């Protein structure tokens, strides 16, 4: 025990008083790092990082220097408007995400006024006495005062992934580096073994982590959706560069002025790039995340939402998803089958739960205490003194303690039956000690029959030990098996319904459990979940990765598997082309949570799991999950609509503008007119994230298919070009606007037609059904689209229109326009019928 440490840090073994803690909180502030804090300035600066703005600013400079200054002013105004739009939407989205993050807090077990309780770790202050356990993320910099087998992963802090042993002894070092301070725990490091207690030395920005400003967040692999967007971006950039260079060269070659040609080709480039796509995606995701939060699904990483919707395999554990997750001790039985109080007392002694006003700890240890308190069976514990503890780990699957009763020192072990059996030499059969080998068959039979009834079983064993200063894993040998602790965890009533719903949604559920295969199988049978094949961890160990890839397709249950095997299963499923979700709440689940396309955890999970997860469920419920998947699919659907819109109508328009510039004696549209149309088009798309999505679209998971988008562009792009050419024909040969003097009339005619077709086509593209009749668009989308169309229609008659170089159009034009656009929309709808007959999505 380090003497004087408490005094030096202004605290005591009872911790701070609540009053003192509140006083210190006012002095030191909240214990949090500014890693997730966003500022308005950051969001504003981000708007200018878009390369499109560089092109636009170049256009403004070129126009201002060599062409008309009004053109330059208009372009600059459009830049300002785009920045305001992007800033407003992204800032709103950031605020939503920030608020959601607050729902997932990291807790710390703190002792104040002599009582242990769990508090939000941001309320910790210097001097607080904090207990840490396996799986915890150390919440502040702390001087260790109690340590038992403490090992910490300091990779986020030092980059070194090898576990570091921590002690509570005083160190005699001059000017030590943080790495040398083995009696300190540093904020952000992860407890991987043992337990301990420490006094908070510094919090928030004053911690070592705060000083070096490193983020705690590990990099997640790129999601399927991100990969898709990237390949889409590459496709667009290639098209844009090719078209821009082509237009500039041809226009210059045929004698159009150099500056006009340059500005025109740059404007086409701007028109082709969906510059508001990042904002549209962010708004979609943030709004979706907000809706998902109402369904108790908290999204930590926005970009994972789309993969969440497209996930086709969900790997889940059993506890809390298929079962109620309310583990209760049913009985403590000797090997003869009688209820035995000695086993209960041993399990109370060999227990990691913290008993205070509320019992806190792992569910099984907590269940033992709750059972004992309810049956008033905890009194016996007081006659023992706890001497030492050998903490639980996932390799041994055993926890042990050494206790003293009178003068006898006893080692008690509790853990997975197979692991305990391996450490036993004898068995206590109703007070008679027998060699384990003689009764092993009968014990196994009892264990299997209890497992087949769906009970979760722990075994308890003990032996007398000699007096020593410290005990280790080596002492867990030659034990006497006492009996079993039998736990119940009833299947959830709605689990069957939830699994069926997921199945209907095209999501295959696989169960990954640390329990034995019999328990898992029984739970599945009770829930009427069809089990195709059960694979045990021991079987997986013998398999190559290719064999695992085959087996993951066939098996429903993976039992008794290790954390590494969970990771292998994730990798194999991903290698087979699945989008994989994984629900985990244990310390051993973190690697698989990082590896899965969508890592899901629960609010009650250990810190590392919550930190690793993309999505945190406030309720561990598969039905909640199904609602979240549905939401993810809607968001994906609306994002795809924007992409399809952009690649078909927008691309078609820009292509026809480029082609027309070749044979017309004037530019078909001025650069500032193209840019203005582009801005108006983007505004009309702002309501797309709120659009309704057809029922059949969310029935099955979808993938971001760049091949499909390419085909869609090739097929639907020319429709819009075709009608642009038709408008050229009408303007040139019906209204005679074929001379440079009548160019404003020509441009106005084409602007209005082009804008109508470009914007109104969303009502056809957004659904595979009959637009409006069997699939209603969202009211905001309808309202905004029609408002933009109305604005675009009256523009040539306004002062702004004159300023932009437009001229009023003859009345006859409007009749032809109406008929032509109607034909266009019917033709696209007919094309849609033809297209979807041959191209599936």
């Amino acid at each position, binding site marked *: 025990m380090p003497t004087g440490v408490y005094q030096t840090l202004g605290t005591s073994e009872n911790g701070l008083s609540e009053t003192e803690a509140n006083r210190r909180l006012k002095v030191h502030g909240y214990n949090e790092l500014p890693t997730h804090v966003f500022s308005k300035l950051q969001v504003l600066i981000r708007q200018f990082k878009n390369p499109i703005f560089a092109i636009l600013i170049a256009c403004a400079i070129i126009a201002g220097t060599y062409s008309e200054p009004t053109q330059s002013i208009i372009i600059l105004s459009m830049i300002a408007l785009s920045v305001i739009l992007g800033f407003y939407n992204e800032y709103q989205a950031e605020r939503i995400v920030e608020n959601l993050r607050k729902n997932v807090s990291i807790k710390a077990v703190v002792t104040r006024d002599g009582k242990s309780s769990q508090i939000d770790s941001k309320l910790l202050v210097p001097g607080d006495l904090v207990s840490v356990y396996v799986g915890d993320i150390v919440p502040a910099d702390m001087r260790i005062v109690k340590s038992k087998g403490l090992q910490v992963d300091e990779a986020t802090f030092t980059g070194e992934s090898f576990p570091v042993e921590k002690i509570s002894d005083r160190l005699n070092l001059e000017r030590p580096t943080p790495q040398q301070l083995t009696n300190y725990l540093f904020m952000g490091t992860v407890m991987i073994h043992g337990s301990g207690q420490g006094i908070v030395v510094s919090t928030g920005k004053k911690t070592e982590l705060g000083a070096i400003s490193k983020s705690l967040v590990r990099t997640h692999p790129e999601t399927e959706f991100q990969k898709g967007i990237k390949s889409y971006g590459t496709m667009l950039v290639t098209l844009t560069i090719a078209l821009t260079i082509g237009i500039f060269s041809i226009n210059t070659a045929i004698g159009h002025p150099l500056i006009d040609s340059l500005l025109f080709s740059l404007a086409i480039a701007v028109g082709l790039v969906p510059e508001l796509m990042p904002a549209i995606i962010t708004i979609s995701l943030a709004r979706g995340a907000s809706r998902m939060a109402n369904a108790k699904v908290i999204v930590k990483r926005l970009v994972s939402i789309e993969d969440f919707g497209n996930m086709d395999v969900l790997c889940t554990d059993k506890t809390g998803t298929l079962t109620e997750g309310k583990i209760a001790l049913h009985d403590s039985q000797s090997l003869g089958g009688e209820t035995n109080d000695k086993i209960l007392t041993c399990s109370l002694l060999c227990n990691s739960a913290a008993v205070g006003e509320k019992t806190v700890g792992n569910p099984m240890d907590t269940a033992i205490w709750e059972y004992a308190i309810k049956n008033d069976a905890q009194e016996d514990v007081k006659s023992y003194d706890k001497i030492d503890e050998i903490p639980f780990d996932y390799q041994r699957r055993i926890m042990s303690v050494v206790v003293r009763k009178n003068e006898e020192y006893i080692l008690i072990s509790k853990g997975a039956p197979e692991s305990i059996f391996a450490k036993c030499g004898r068995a206590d059969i109703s007070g008679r000690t027998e060699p384990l080998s003689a009764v092993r068959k009968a014990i196994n039979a009892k264990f299997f029959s209890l497992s087949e009834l769906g009970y979760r079983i722990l075994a308890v064993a003990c032996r007398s030990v000699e007096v020593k200063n410290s005990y280790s894993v080596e002492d867990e040998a030659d034990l006497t098996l006492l009996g079993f602790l039998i736990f119940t965890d009833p299947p959830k009533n709605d689990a069957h319904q939830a699994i069926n719903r997921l199945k209907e949604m095209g999501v295959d559920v696989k169960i990954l459990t640390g329990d034995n295969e019999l328990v898992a199988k029984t739970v599945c049978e009770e829930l009427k979940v069809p089990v195709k094949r059960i694979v045990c961890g021991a079987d997986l160990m013998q398999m190559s990765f290719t064999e695992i890839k085959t087996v993951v397709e066939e098996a429903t249950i993976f039992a008794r598997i290790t954390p590494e095997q969970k990771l292998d299963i994730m990798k194999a499923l991903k290698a087979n082309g699945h989008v994989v979700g994984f629900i985990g709440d244990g310390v051993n689940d973190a690697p698989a949570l990082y590896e899965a396309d969508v890592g899901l955890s629960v609010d009650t999970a250990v810190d590392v799991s919550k930190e690793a997860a993309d999505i945190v469920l406030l309720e561990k419920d598969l039905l909640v999950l199904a609602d979240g998947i549905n939401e993810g699919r809607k968001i994906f659907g609306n994002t795809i609509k924007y992409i399809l819109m952009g690649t078909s109508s927008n691309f078609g328009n820009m292509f*026809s503008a480029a*082609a*027309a510039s070749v*044979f017309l004696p004037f530019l078909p549209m001025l650069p500032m007119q193209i840019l203005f149309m582009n801005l108006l088009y983007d505004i009309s798309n702002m309501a797309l994230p709120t659009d309704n999505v057809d029922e059949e679209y969310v029935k099955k998971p979808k993938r971001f298919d760049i091949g499909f988008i390419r*085909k869609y562009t*090739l*097929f639907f792009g*020319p*429709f819009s*070009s*075709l009608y642009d*050419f*038709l408008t*050229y*024909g*009408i303007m*040139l*040969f*019906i209204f*005679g606007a*074929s001379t440079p003097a009548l160019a404003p009339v020509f441009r106005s005619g084409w602007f209005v037609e082009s804008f109508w077709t470009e914007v109104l086509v969303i009502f056809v593209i957004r659904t595979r059904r*009959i637009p409006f009749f069997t699939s209603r668009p969202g009211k905001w989308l309808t309202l905004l689209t029609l408002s933009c169309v109305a604005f675009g229609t009256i523009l040539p008659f306004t002062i702004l229109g004159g300023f932009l170089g437009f001229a009023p159009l003859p009345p*006859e034009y409007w*009749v*032809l326009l109406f*008929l*032509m656009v*109607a*034909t266009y929309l*019917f*033709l696209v*709808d*007919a*094309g849609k*019928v*033809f*297209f979807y*007959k*041959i*191209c599936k999505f």
Partner: protein
Amino acid sequence: MSLPDPILFAWWASSISAGSLFLAIVGIYLYATTRSRRRKSNQTTKNVGGLFKDFIFVWVLLGILVFYIITINIGSSLIFAAGNILVEALLIAYLLKNRKEESEER
């Protein structure tokens, strides 16, 4: 009504024809790739009549193109408007028939 500038008209007619033909070729290409995929999995037994039916959309498209070129050449907005109404009626008939087939298949 004045006759259009022949060079400009030729440019225009070539451009719109090229656009329509491109669209028709894309349609045929997409259809052919799907058909060859289905043939591999023995899902297709279409005859020439069936093929003609499948491509009705392409025929409609080419028909519209011819109609547009002729009316623009004439330069009459009245004929253009009337023709458009006729085309819309044809497209609605096509859509009604195909939507019905689609819902029956579902």
